[in-house]
């Protein structure tokens, strides 16, 4: 009996040992971060020193570049015990440089494996020093956990400040200045009366024809200036072209209908159409209701226009501005009633839909060129010339870049890396 008990005890003890060894092996293989540290430390006999991780090293603090101040970046080298799973997190502590060693405050934490924290609570003009605490957790037999930390050496002194120029955007500034200079230069040339060749844009050449067709058929012209508000440059371009179309409509005495989806666009478009009718010498033909609001809602707007199109069967439809999924719903409905359709947008995803459903499509930049093109005014045409030369420079840069990058001479693409906002 005693022998059996002894056997059972021995086997049980062996099984317990096996289980513990298995658990350890499992936690080392699969465990990460806190859970791993906890399971490894749940042995009651483990001392704090045994689980204390080696400290992080080479803590460097520096002012966050290209910002508005109030921010310091802290970087460090990971603790050698990080890969062993003995680090749960890193606490970054800060104190003003003149205060004593005991005045540290935690300003942020990073998970194991991370080596950077940004202190967004720094005051400009104050000098700070930082230290990084590598933290592990000791789980006691009672189930309580206590953090076991080891501190790095103190960092260099650092001070946050606001910058007056965002150096990440130097390339944008250079390119912007070059393109801006070219545009202004050609505007100047145009002012002096120099003849400028501007390539023909089929969609804009067809505007006269489209308005004329509506006149001949005695039907309306529908002008849709997109679904975005006046802060969108495409909407601005759209309502600018509206002025030219409205002037033609006034001259031909053709009915114009401008349903809009934004109140501010309604106010602006109404003013533009009114001025166009006055410039055409037909202020009496202008009616405020030509420009009317439908709804801000994308599909409600599309549904309302579709209904109007099907009922009123306009001869001509213009879509000029920013469009999303409603583009094809509108254009296909216009196509189904046989209207001549001219679209223009700078939304690349919607361009194929317009190309498929409309007679003419202004692709991207052509939308922005339309106002200048239609006005035939030298100053405006000069800006188009500058824009085209700018495009030529971009093409050259692409060709040169492809050659340099392919030959491995230099990382040309890195010149054009721009930090996001």
């Amino acid at each position: 009996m005693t022998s059996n008990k002894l056997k059972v005890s021995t086997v049980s003890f062996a099984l317990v040992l096996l289980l513990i060894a298995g658990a350890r092996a499992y936690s080392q293989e699969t465990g990460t971060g806190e859970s791993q540290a906890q399971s490894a430390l749940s042995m009651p006999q483990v001392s704090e020193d045994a689980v204390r991780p080696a400290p992080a090293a080479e803590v460097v603090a520096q002012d966050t570049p290209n910002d508005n101040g109030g921010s310091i970046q802290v970087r460090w080298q990971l603790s050698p015990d990080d890969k062993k799973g003995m680090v749960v997190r890193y606490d970054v502590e800060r104190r003003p440089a003149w205060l004593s060693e005991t005045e540290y405050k935690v300003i942020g934490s990073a998970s194991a494996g991370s080596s950077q924290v940004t202190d967004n609570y720094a005051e400009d003009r104050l000098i700070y020093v930082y230290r990084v605490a590598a933290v592990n957790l000791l789980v006691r037999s009672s189930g309580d956990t206590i953090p076991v930390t080891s501190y790095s050496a103190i960092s260099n002194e650092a001070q946050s400040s606001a910058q007056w120029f965002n150096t990440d955007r130097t390339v944008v500034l250079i390119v912007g200045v070059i393109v801006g200079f070219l545009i202004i230069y050609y505007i100047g040339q145009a002012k002096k009366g120099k003849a400028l060749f501007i390539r023909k844009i089929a969609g804009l050449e067809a505007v006269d024809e489209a308005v004329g067709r509506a006149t001949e058929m005695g039907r309306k012209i529908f002008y849709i200036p997109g679904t975005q508000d006046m802060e969108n440059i495409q909407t601005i371009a759209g309502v600018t072209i509206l002025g030219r179309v409205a002037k033609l409509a006034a001259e031909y005495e053709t009915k114009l209908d401008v349903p809009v989806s934004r109140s501010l666009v309604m106010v602006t478009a109404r003013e533009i159409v009114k001025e166009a009718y006055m410039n055409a010498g037909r202020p009496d033909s202008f009616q405020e209701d030509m420009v009317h609001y439908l709804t801000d809602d994308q599909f409600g707007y599309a549904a309302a226009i579709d209904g109007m199109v099907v009922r009123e069967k306009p001869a001509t439809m213009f879509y000029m501005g920013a469009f999303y999924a409603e583009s094809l719903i509108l254009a296909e409905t216009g196509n189904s009633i046989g209207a001549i359709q001219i679209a223009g947008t700078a939304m690349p995803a919607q361009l194929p839909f317009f190309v498929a459903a409309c007679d003419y499509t202004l692709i991207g930049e052509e939308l922005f060129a339309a106002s200048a093109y239609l006005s035939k005014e030298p100053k405006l045409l000069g800006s188009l010339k500058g824009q085209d030369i700018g495009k030529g420079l971009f093409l050259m840069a692409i060709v040169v870049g492809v050659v340099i990058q392919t030959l491995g001479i230099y990382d040309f693409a890195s010149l054009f890396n721009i930090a996001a906002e």
Partner: protein
Amino acid sequence: MRREIPLIITAVVGIVFVVQYFIPHTPFNRFQELFSDWFFIIAACAIWLGALNLLKLSIISIQKKRRDWQYAVIIVVSWFTMAIAGILGGRDFQTPGTGFTWLYDNIYTPLSATMFAILAFFVASASYRAFRARNIQATLLLVAGFLVMMGRVLFDDLLFGSIGEEGIKPLSEISDFIMNYPNLAGQRAIMIGIALGTVSTALRIILGIERSYLGGGD
């Protein structure tokens, strides 16, 4: 002065926006947020202009029994129904269980979804026209479109899925190639043009050369 003041405001605001992009220092870093806030405040107030305009035109249409005036009745009834439901719901009108939310969830949302769903049929009819092989370009478009479609609908699994553990997926690879190289290159070309066009338009407006957005005159 009627034209000069808007031109000056446009030029100053335009220049400030350009400058703030390059200067993170106070006060420039706050301008974008400040102007955006003002824009949204003005736009929120201006919504009444649009809403009242819609109501006015609809009521006139009903009064004068214009063509299709019945649709105007629906607009007026819907307008007042949603407005009253919102007002009765008080400050929490958007919380679940209110009349406004019920109308929104059970009428507005299905109607919007219906309009969006119609897009599928329009895509089919537009594709039919666009993909007719009338000339070489249209034929190329047709072939490219066909390959992309085959790759995207996972025909590979059906045709080649049994070969190897992972399966050979030539259609997916061809589809990805078309999307990642010729398609992306074309899109980027368009984006470069758009960026230049935006710069050009912005300069014309800031310099006061483009004035037609102020109303007709050049």
